[in-house]
């Protein structure tokens, strides 16, 4: 662990990608927000539902919610093998956690991780004990409720050997808090023979800057899937989650995003295939409606028998922005099978006219292709995510 002085020096370190954000521009969000007992009777309900977090909590194992920098709700059905806590509470309950965390994520990675570390930021702590399968998803919600403020959270997820978990995370800003900054540092630790599905739905303000930092360390024969959806206007997002795979493990990244006019989205991911026979798939589907898009993907094969595929596809529906696809493959041994595809352009006219020849008008045809383009990359989307996806596509008026 680096000493505090080294981390302080990293406060001036820009992120590897994306526009640099001046952290001084933002006040710290409150650490003691209003506590919400009943999500259904909450003024925040509509923000939560917009990002797939259901307020009745039906078919959910539990919910943990942060408003600004403090926990405002935590509920869990009694379920053996599952812990849902704030990180601060977890540190009180688990003596060894202090030394355990910040191993997956280097606090000196950049100014965003450094500031989160130095602030001793709170966040959520989810743990699945060895051999436990958590049937219903856990939902987490992060809401920014103060304008010109920074939300900084540090989340720790642990899925022990033989455990399985599905997480749906919704992030949003209140209407009056659009000019804000979100930094979410997430460390994920998976043991052997474990499964984790981690879906994030974001809906921010038009001026919100978003800098998630995620690293997942995975043991042997485990499966990790990471779904990321951002369909509404945002100021800027720069996200490049990292996964380190052990032998026989697999990682799947699915990204679906729409860059509206004024939005700057730089998203992607890195998978280090460290163990023998590890597998990975990075799929990106993005649409530019006049905004800036950069889809990155990097696969690094470090062991024999590795198989990996990377696919970046972007549709440009409106001029005025820019779209960049950067697929990278890197191999350090001979026995690997790594491929990539990238495509950027408009929807082929013959596809639109084919659907029009069945009686759909042009807007309906484009919308149908775009909906399929976005959701087609993910098999078995959570129902909440699918509904949100459909609603966002309708609102986006993609037939223009």
């Amino acid at each position, binding site marked *: 662990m680096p000493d505090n002085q080294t981390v302080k020096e990293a406060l001036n370190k820009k992120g590897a990608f994306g526009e640099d954000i001046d952290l001084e521009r933002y006040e710290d969000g409150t650490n003691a927000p209003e506590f919400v007992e009943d999500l259904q009777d909450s003024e925040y309900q509509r923000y939560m539902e917009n990002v797939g977090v259901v307020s009745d909590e039906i078919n959910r194992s539990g919910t943990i919610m942060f408003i600004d920098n403090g926990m405002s709700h935590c509920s869990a059905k009694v379920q053996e093998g599952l812990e849902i806590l704030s990180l601060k509470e977890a540190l009180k309950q688990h003596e060894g956690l202090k030394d355990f965390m910040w191993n997956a994520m280097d606090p000196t990675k950049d100014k965003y991780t450094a500031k989160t570390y130095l602030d001793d930021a709170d966040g959520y702590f989810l743990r699945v004990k060895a051999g436990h399968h958590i049937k219903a998803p856990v939902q987490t919600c992060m809401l920014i409720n103060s304008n010109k403020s920074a939300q900084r959270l540090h989340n720790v997820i642990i899925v022990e050997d033989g455990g399985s978990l599905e997480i749906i995370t919704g992030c949003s800003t209140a209407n009056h808090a659009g000019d804000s900054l979100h930094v979410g540092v997430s460390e994920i630790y998976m043991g052997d023979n474990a499964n984790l599905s981690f879906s994030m739905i974001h809906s921010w303000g038009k001026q919100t800057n978003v800098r998630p930092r995620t690293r997942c360390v995975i043991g042997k024969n485990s499966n990790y899937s990471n779904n990321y959806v951002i369909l509404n206007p945002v100021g800027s997002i720069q996200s490049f989650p990292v996964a380190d795979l052990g032998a026989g493990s697999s990682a799947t990244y699915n990204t679906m995003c729409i860059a509206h006019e004024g939005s700057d989205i730089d998203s992607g991911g890195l998978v280090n295939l460290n163990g023998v026979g590890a597998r990975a798939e990075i799929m990106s589907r993005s649409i530019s409606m006049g905004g800036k898009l950069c889809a990155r993907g990097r696969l690094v094969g470090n062991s024999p028998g590795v198989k990996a595929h990377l696919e970046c596809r972007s549709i440009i529906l409106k001029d005025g922005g820019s779209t960049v696809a950067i697929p990278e493959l890197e191999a350090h041994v001979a026995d690997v099978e790594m491929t990539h595809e990238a495509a950027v352009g408009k929807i082929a006219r013959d*596809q639109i006219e084919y*659907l029009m*020849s*069945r*009686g*759909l008008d*042009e807007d309906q*045809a484009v919308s*149908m292709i775009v909906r399929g383009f976005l*959701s087609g990359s993910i098999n078995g989307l959570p129902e909440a995510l699918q509904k949100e996806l459909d609603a966002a596509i309708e609102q986006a008026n993609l037939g223009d």
Partner: protein
Amino acid sequence: MTEMLKIVNLHAEAGEREILRGVDLTINEGETAVLFGPNGSGKSTLLSTIMGYSTTKVTEGEILFKGEDITEMTVDQRAKLGIGMMMQRPPNIYGVRLGDLLNATSGKNSGIIDDAPKFKMERFLDREINVGFSGGEIKRSELLQLTAQKPEFILLDEPESGVDLENIDLIGSKVRELLYDGHGCGGSAQRHVSSLVITHTGQILDYIGADRAYVMKNGRIQCSGRPADLLKDIKEHGYGECAACQTIKL
């Protein structure tokens, strides 16, 4: 007889090259017309131009459908008026599942999804349209989509091409069902849908019959006659020495 489709002096370009050079053609209500012609003669371009695809551009002439000038109409406007097309090589529609398109064209309660097994397409409803389909699967998918659409006039571009012998009977039967009321037992079938069919082999004619055949060469209709007679002449003499052209001038 009511004129369903009337094409007058139609000239059209594809890729800035004139392909259709003055086509005149009339097809009446309930009539099936067959279009023969060598490769590159403009047959598929004519069908695409009638459907309104932007791969072709009309430079002169007009297309009337049920008396209405559709020359400048969009593809979907033509489809809504009652024109449907079975393409020879339709594009892959990535991300759009066949079942979703069927529901969008005919409505969720139309029962079209329940009809999929009759087309041997039940396993394809969740598949992206045409992606990885074999020749026969593409044809069956096209026919299922046309059944959902219920057009009054169908353009069929080589419905039997790329279809194995096992599937040809199913394809032929389904095309027949699209064109006829009833199943034809005891001579009760009535053709109610008009069509224009491109065929090289004539196999499809065993299932649907045809009222009139036309031979297209160099972007024009060169001659017409009884389908069986023209097909026999073409098989015997090829298009270079079309006997029909010697006797039946338009």
